């Protein structure tokens, strides 16, 4: 992992550096945001006493009380719809949607109200709402628990969409999302929740809505986000053993997309593979491919390739390893790109 905070930790290991899982890092980020601003409230199903089904909000209700950590009735539209009113009253609600596939009952409130009220009123109303969504597959779950719905929201003007791939980003990005005056969809890679990494809780974080080059390379650029960033890094490490140099860019922000570092890398490598778990049709991966061919047409030595989930509903869990982009599919795409 080439994130700057991790580099510094490796070098000097200051006291503020902790080894945390992504889950704990989001928890510590939420706690820091709640301590910093009494208007921050956490709301959702089971977020209080249970600490959320993934325990991301563990201990927050005990320390901040039932008025700042609301165990809500079980209705997603209600969670987001009341968050709108709370935001208009001056609060900064952080909503938890329990699983990706459960966000659709709230879709109407998110795209009809959350996304549009600022624009409709020309800035008179602000909606500083964060909607946290554990997303993606790979945990052997049943239907509706493994989906990647981020594209719907990146497609909607008025929303910002981010996703983290490591504990340091998880800790800081959630705080930055909460501090943002725009509504932010915060997608959490649930199959990476319990992977550990070092978090420097004092180092100033980089900008929230920016991608980051995690690994430089000269042969093929891999652009990835969320749970498949690790897959991309593993592919790059494996390729290196074969004498092939893959660059890896963690997109981090899906709306707005920060494709500058991708363009720069593609101008060096001449090749791009976009990796995402979401189905590829009309997807973020498709959009990135289109943007890169538009901006880097004369640099490209091969068509932009996409490694995505298939254009099917998410399959039964016993088949998800075939569905999800894995190391081999990424390496195969890199080979196809090189062979062009």
């Amino acid at each position, binding site marked *: 992992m080439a994130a700057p905070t991790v580099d510094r930790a490796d070098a000097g290991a200051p006291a503020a550096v902790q080894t945390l899982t992504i889950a704990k890092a989001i928890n510590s980020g939420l706690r820091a945001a709640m301590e910093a601003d009494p208007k921050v409230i956490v709301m959702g199903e089971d977020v209080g006493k249970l600490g959320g089904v993934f325990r991301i909000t563990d201990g927050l209700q005990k320390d901040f009380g039932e008025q700042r950590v609301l165990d809500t009735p079980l209705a997603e539209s209600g969670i987001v719809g*009341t968050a709108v*009113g*709370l935001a208009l*009253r001056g609060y900064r609600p952080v909503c938890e949607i329990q699983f990706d596939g459960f966000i659709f009952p709230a879709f109407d409130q998110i795209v009809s109200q959350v996304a549009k009220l600022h624009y*409709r009123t020309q*800035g*008179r*109303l602000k909606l500083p709402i964060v909607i946290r969504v554990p997303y993606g597959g790979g945990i052997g779950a049943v239907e509706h628990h493994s989906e990647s719905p981020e594209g719907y929201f990146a497609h909607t003007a008025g929303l910002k969409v981010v996703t983290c791939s490591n504990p340091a980003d998880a800790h800081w990005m959630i705080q930055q999302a909460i501090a943002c*005056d725009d509504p932010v969809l915060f997608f959490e890679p649930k199959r990476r929740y319990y992977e550990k990494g070092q978090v420097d809780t004092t180092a100033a974080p980089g900008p929230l809505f920016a991608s980051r080059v995690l690994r430089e390379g000269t042969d093929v650029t891999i652009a990835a986000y969320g749970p498949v960033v690790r897959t991309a890094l593993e592919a790059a490490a494996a390729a290196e053993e074969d004498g092939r140099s893959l660059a890896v860019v963690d997109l981090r922000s899906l709306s*707005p997309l920060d494709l500058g570092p991708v363009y720069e890398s593609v101008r060096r490598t001449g090749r791009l593979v976009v990796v995402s778990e979401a189905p590829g049709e009309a997807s973020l991966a498709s959009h990135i491919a289109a943007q890169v061919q538009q901006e880097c047409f004369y640099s490209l030595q091969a068509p932009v390739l996409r490694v995505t989930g298939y254009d099917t509903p998410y399959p039964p869990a016993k088949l998800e390893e075939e569905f999800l982009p894995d190391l081999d599919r990424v390496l195969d795409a890199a080979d196809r790109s090189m062979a062009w």
Partner: protein
Amino acid sequence: MSSSEEWTHPGPDAVPATGAAPTAEQVIAGLKATDEGGSDLVQLLTPEGERVQHPDFAVDVTAEELRGLYRDMVLVRRVDREANALQRKGELGLWAPLLGQEAAQVGAGRAMRARDMAFPSYREHGVAWCRGVPPTDLLSMFRGTDQCGWDPVEHRFHPYTIVIGNQVLNATGYAMGQRFDGAVGDDGGEATMAFFGDGATSQGDVHEGFVWAAVYDAPVVFFCQNNQWAISEPTERQSRLPLYQRARGYGFPGIRVDGNDVLATLAVTRWALDQCRTGNGPVLIEAFTYRMDAHTTSDDPSRYRLSDELELWKLKDPIERVKVHLVKQQWADQEFFDHVELEAEELGARLREHCSSLEAPPAERIFSQVYAEGSPVVDAQRAEFLSYHAGFLGGER
């Protein structure tokens, strides 16, 4: 209301025993109540202009106050008729008429205090009037020159909400915030009003709003204007029972008021707001009224309802009954009525003049305020757009 306890803790006879389906007679009685208002209808001024008493809801209004309510309704009706005519002339893209619902909206709107907050649907022109929104500001959304037209913070009147029922949850959340802020209590408490129609009661968001408000004791008055028709769908398509009776299932009071009676609506809404702002949680009001005109100017009610029904409801006109009462009481003379009519004429003229002055904003408005903190993607598109336009002679396409 004799006792709030009665509503908070309904007795064992209040609802049918678990598993017992309502009998056919009960259902029919419910539908009859829907048709005629029913025996639970709170009324303080009859269609004939006679004051009547209600054991739970009393209201004392001075002659001046009643003249004020009359004036409100006449002017609001004029705003509505002018806007409707403007749409017919092609000046507005659409209009949602409020004809017939003036008493429901003025009664509710005048019951509110300055610090209360209102979340309207898209037909609440009368509530907007009471919140001090200049009627001219109502036109811009329907003309397509803006998407709100007023400052929702200054007037404490949220933008119109077109997606049915969304605003009920938004209002409930706002009311939760009022409670969290400690703005509930005997002195200076605040409350919120959520306005919606009978069709909206079928939406999940309205149900969820009721659930949230109940469990968080949110100070929100749910004000349902049952105008009998959700476009072409009658109330029977929304409910087997009178809508106000649903409140009991959520554990808060539900009251059906004659929505064509401005005094009854005022009295009931004042009571409900006081319940909320003193910490007793939400109230549902069903204002039993009638949409005298189309759903919107795109609608054709002659396809789905009988003119007899319209004629019947004309006899219950909300403005005429106040006029009759004012005359009977000798609280107003012809000079007063002439003066209000003159005001209405002037307001209509102002509205027409203002409408034609509403022009499309500069094209850059497309890109304005999409985000509070901006977006490089939108910025780039704006720059590209401006560059494209600059390529034409004089910058005009």
